[in-house]
C-alpha cells in the first residue's frame, strides 16, 4: 500500500538573530542553513497494517507523514501510496487518504460539525446513500449523537476530537495518516480514540500510519513500529523486539513483608526504588534467573513480579544512545539534522 | 508606581513596534483617505478657489490632516476588544498595572516610528504649500498641546468603546459607526468650513472637531490668538469629560467582568 524508497527531505531555513542590527544585515545578506528533516528513509507498509512512528520532537515523523500525504515534495527518493505518487495530488489519490492532526482542526469553528460534514460530502462527491450509512456508523462508533448539532466552539476538546475523526473519515479513505491524534486529550478520551482507530481499521481494512510520542498509543494500537530519530529510521519491527533489543534488562518488583537492607538488595541487581514495603530492581537478562531464585529463597517476600521496563525509559535510552553516537560522528558540514518547524515559518 | 514603570513600558513598546515594523508600515500607508480627497478637491479648485481654499490651500489642508492623523493614531480599541473576547484581559488585570496605562504606553512608544514615517509628509508640506501654513509663533507654541489633546481624545474614545466590549457583543460595530460619523464631522473628509452653515455650526462644537480639525486649523494659522486659547480649553474640557466617562465605564465594566468570570 505504501512504499518509500530512500526518501530524503531537506529544506533551507533562514537563520536570523534578534535585534535591529541583525535585521538590517539580513536585508542585505541572508544566512541560509540546510536542515535535513528526513534522511534516506526506506520502508513498506502493507494494506490494512497499523504502523506507529515513534520518535522525539523534531525527529521527522510529521515531515514524513506530510510527504506521504502529498503536502510536501520529497527532495529525493521515491514514494508511492495506494499506487499513486502523492505529490501529484490527483483527485483519486486525495479521495483515498485522510490526515488528522492533533490540535489542528478542519471543522468550521462557529458552525455545528454537521455543516462541515455536508461541505465535505460535496467536496468528496460522496453519494447520498453511502454518506448516510457512513455517518450512522461513525455516530454509533464514536457516540456523536448530541454533538453534531452544537457549534464546534461549544464542544469540549475531547468531543471536538471525536467529531474531527468523524469528518476525516466521511469519505471512507483507505489510508489514514494520524499525526499526534491524542495530544492534549485526557486519559479516557485517548482510550476512546485508540479503540475507535482499531475498530475502523478492522472494519474497513484501512491502513493506519500513526505518529505519536505517547508510548501507550503505539503500544496499544501498533503491532509494528518505526522508530525515527534525526530523520533516520533506527528501528523497524515489532515493539516487543525493540524493547528486547534496547533494554535486555528486566524489572523485578518485590513486595516485602518487612524492610530489607540496601546491601542485601544490591547483590541482586540495580536498585531503582527502595521502599519499606516495595522494591524495584533492574536486573540484566543473564542475571535474571539467579536473582529471582535468590530473592525467593533469601528475602521476606509477599509477592514478586518480573516485567519489562516502561516504554518511556526504553525510548529515552534509545534516543540517548542515538544522540551520543551523533555527537561523535557529526561531520563538519553545515547540515543540521532534524528540527521540525512550525508551518508558515517566514 | 505606574509612573516608575512607564519608561520600561515605553522601551518594550518601542521594541515591539520595531519587531512589527512591516505591519506598521502597511497600517500607515493605509491611511490614504486625505490624499484621495485631495485629488478630488484639487480637481474642483482647478478653475478657481473653493471658499477660502485654492489648489495649494487644499494641498496644505489635506497634508496637514494626514500628518495629524498619522501622529494621533491609536489602535487600542482593537487590542482591547480582542483581549476581552479571548479572555486574556484577565491576565492583564492580575498585574499591578492598569491595562489602559499599559496600552497607552504601547501606543506612545510607537511615536518615533510614526514620526519617521510622517517626516516625508512634513517635507512635502513645507516644500509645496509653505505659503499656506500659519506664521503666528503663538499658534505654533500651543500646537503640541493641541496634538497631545487630539491623541488623548482619540485614545480615550477608543478606550471607552473598547471597554464597552465588556457589555456589548458588537463594540467593534459601534466603533465603525463612530469612525463613519467622525470622518465627516472631524474634517477628515471635508474641511469643516466648506460645509453649509447649519452643519458647520454644529460641527464646530462637537468633540470630533477637536480630534483632527483643531490641530489642522492651528497648522494653517486660521484662528486668532484668543480664539485659539478658547478652543484649546474646549479641547481639554472634552479630554477631562471623556476621562471621567472612561473611568466610570471601566469600573462598571470590571464589576460585570468579575461577576461573569470574564
Amino acid at each position: 500500500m505504501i512504499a518509500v524508497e530512500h526518501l530524503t527531505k531537506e529544506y533551507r531555513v533562514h537563520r536570523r538573530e534578534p535585534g535591529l542590527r541583525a535585521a538590517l544585515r539580513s536585508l542585505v545578506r541572508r544566512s541560509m542553513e540546510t536542515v535535513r528533516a528526513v534522511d534516506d528513509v526506506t520502508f513498506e507498509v502493507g494494506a490494512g497494517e497499523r504502523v506507529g512512528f515513534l520518535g522525539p520532537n523534531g525527529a521527522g515523523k510529521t515531515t514524513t507523514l506530510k510527504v506521504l500525504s502529498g503536502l510536501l515534495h520529497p527532495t529525493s527518493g521515491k514514494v508511492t501510496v495506494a499506487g499513486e505518487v502523492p505529490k501529484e495530488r490527483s483527485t483519486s489519490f486525495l479521495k483515498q487518504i485522510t490526515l488528522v492532526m492533533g490540535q489542528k482542526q478542519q471543522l468550521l469553528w462557529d458552525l455545528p460539525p454537521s455543516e462541515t460534514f455536508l461541505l465535505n460530502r460535496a467536496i468528496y462527491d460522496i453519494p447520498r446513500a453511502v454518506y448516510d450509512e457512513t455517518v450512522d456508523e461513525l455516530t454509533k462508533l464514536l457516540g456523536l449523537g448530541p454533538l453534531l448539532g452544537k457549534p464546534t466552539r461549544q464542544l469540549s476538546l475531547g468531543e471536538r476530537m471525536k467529531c474531527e475523526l468523524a469528518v476525516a473519515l466521511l469519505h471512507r479513505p483507505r489510508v489514514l495518516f494520524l499525526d499526534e491524534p491524542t495530544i492534549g486529550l485526557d486519559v479516557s478520551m485517548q482510550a476512546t480514540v485508540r479503540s475507535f482507530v482499531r475498530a475502523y481499521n478492522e472494519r474497513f481494512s484501512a491502513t493506519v500510519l500513526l505518529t505519536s510520542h505517547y508510548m501507550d498509543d503505539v503500544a496499544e494500537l501498533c503491532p509494528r513500529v518505526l522508530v525515527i530519530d534525526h530523520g533516520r529510521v533506527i528501528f523497524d519491527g515489532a515493539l516487543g523486539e525493540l524493547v528486547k533489543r534496547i533494554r535486555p534488562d528486566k524489572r523485578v518488583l518485590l513486595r516485602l513483608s518487612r524492610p530489607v537492607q540496601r546491601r542485601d538488595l544490591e547483590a541482586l541487581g540495580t536498585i531503582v526504588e527502595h521502599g519499606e514495603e516495595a522494591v524495584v530492581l533492574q536486573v540484566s537478562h543473564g542475571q535474571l534467573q539467579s536473582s529471582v531464585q535468590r530473592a525467593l529463597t533469601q528475602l521476606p517476600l509477599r509477592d514478586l513480579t518480573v516485567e519489562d521496563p516502561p516504554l518511556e525509559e526504553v525510548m529515552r535510552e534509545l534516543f540517548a544512545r542515538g544522540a551520543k553516537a551523533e555527537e561523535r560522528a557529526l561531520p563538519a558540514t553545515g547540515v543540521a539534522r532534524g528540527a521540525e518547524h512550525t508551518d508558515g515559518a517566514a | 508606581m505606574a509612573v516608575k514603570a512607564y519608561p520600561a513600558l515605553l522601551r518594550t513598546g518601542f521594541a515591539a513596534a520595531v519587531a512589527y515594523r512591516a505591519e506598521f508600515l502597511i497600517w500607515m500607508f493605509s491611511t490614504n483617505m486625505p490624499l484621495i480627497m485631495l485629488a478630488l478637491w484639487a480637481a474642483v479648485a482647478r478653475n478657481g478657489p473653493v471658499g477660502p481654499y485654492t489648489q495649494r490651500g487644499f494641498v496644505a489642508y489635506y497634508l496637514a490632516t494626514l500628518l495629524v492623523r498619522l501622529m494621533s493614531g491609536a489602535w487600542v480599541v482593537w487590542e482591547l476588544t480582542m483581549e476581552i473576547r479571548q479572555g486574556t484581559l484577565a491576565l492583564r488585570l492580575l498585574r499591578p498595572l492598569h491595562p489602559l496605562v499599559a496600552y497607552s504606553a504601547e501606543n506612545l512608544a510607537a511615536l518615533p516610528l510614526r514620526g519617521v514615517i510622517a517626516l516625508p509628509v512634513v517635507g512635502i508640506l513645507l516644500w509645496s504649500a509653505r505659503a499656506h501654513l500659519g506664521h503666528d509663533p503663538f499658534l505654533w507654541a500651543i500646537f503640541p498641546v493641541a496634538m497631545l489633546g487630539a491623541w488623548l481624545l482619540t485614545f480615550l474614545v477608543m478606550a471607552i468603546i473598547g471597554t464597552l466590549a465588556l457589555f456589548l457583543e458588537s463594540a467593534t460595530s459601534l466603533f465603525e459607526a463612530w469612525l463613519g460619523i467622525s470622518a465627516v464631522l472631524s474634517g477628515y473628509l471635508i474641511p469643516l468650513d466648506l460645509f453649509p452653515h447649519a452643519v458647520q455650526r454644529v460641527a464646530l462644537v462637537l468633540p470630533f472637531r477637536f480630534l483632527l480639525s483643531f490641530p489642522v486649523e492651528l497648522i494653517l494659522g486660521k484662528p486668532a490668538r484668543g480664539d485659539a486659547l478658547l478652543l484649546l480649553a474646549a479641547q481639554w474640557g472634552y479630554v477631562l469629560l471623556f476621562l471621567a466617562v472612561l473611568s466610570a465605564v471601566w469600573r462598571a465594566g470590571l464589576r460585570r467582568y468579575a461577576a461573569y468570570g470574564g
Partner: protein
Amino acid sequence: MKRLFAIVRAQLRASAALALQYRVEFVVEGALAVLWVGVTLIPILVVFGRTQVLAGWSFPEMLLVLGWFVALKGFLEGAVSPSLMNVIEHVRKGTLDFILLKPADAQLLVSIAKIEPWRVVDLAGALLIFVYAFHALGRVPSALDVAASLAMLVAALLVLYSISILVVSIAFIAVRVDNLLYLFQSVFDVARWPSTIFRGALAVVFTYLLPLALMTTYPALALLGKLTPATAFGSLLGTVAFAAFARLAWRASIGRYTSASS
C-alpha cells in the same frame, strides 16, 4: 461541472450559515453598511453644492461612478477580502494543509469561504443611486448600454478578485505582510472618482499600472453610452490576461508552499 456547482453551493451555504449565526450582528452590520453609503455620498454632495461640472462630469454622471464604487466596494469587502483573509489565517494556524488535501481546487475552495451577506445593502444602495442619477439626467439607459456596463462590471470584479489573489499569493511566501490585503482595500478608494480627476503621474499609475479608476469609470461610461467598443474589448482582454496571470501566481505560491515549508 455538476460537482463544481455542488461544491460552490455547499461552500456558499456554509459561509451563509456562518454569517447568519449572529443575528444581532447581521442587523447591525446592515445598518453600518447604510451609514457608509451615506458617508460616501457626502463629499460629492458638498462638491456639487459649489460647482456644476467636475473634470468633465456632471453631478448625476459622477453619481454613476460613485454607485459603481459602492457596488464594487461591497463585493470587495463582503466577499473577496473576508475569504482571502481567511486563507492567511489558515497559513498562520497551520490548517491550510486540510484545504490542500481536499480533492478540489484550493483556489476555488478558499475564494468563497467567507461571505458577509449584509453587504448586499451596498448593491441595493448602488441601485438606488443609479435610479436617482438617471432620474436627474431625465432619461433611461438603453439595453445595450446596460449590457455593456454589466460586462464592464464583471471585468472589474474579476480584476479586483485577481489582485486579491495576487496579494494572498505574496502572503504565502512572506506571511508577515498579510495585511497587504488591507492596504489594497484602502488604495481601492481611488476608484471613487472618475479617472479624469487624476492628472500627470497619478493618471498614468491609476490608468495603466493599477487600473483602479477604470474599474468604476468604465461601467459608468458604458451606462452613459460613452464607452467605445474598442475600449470595451480591450479592457475585457486585459482582464482575462490579468486573471490568468493571477492564477499562475497562485499555483506558483502553492507549489512553493508545499516544497519549501516543513
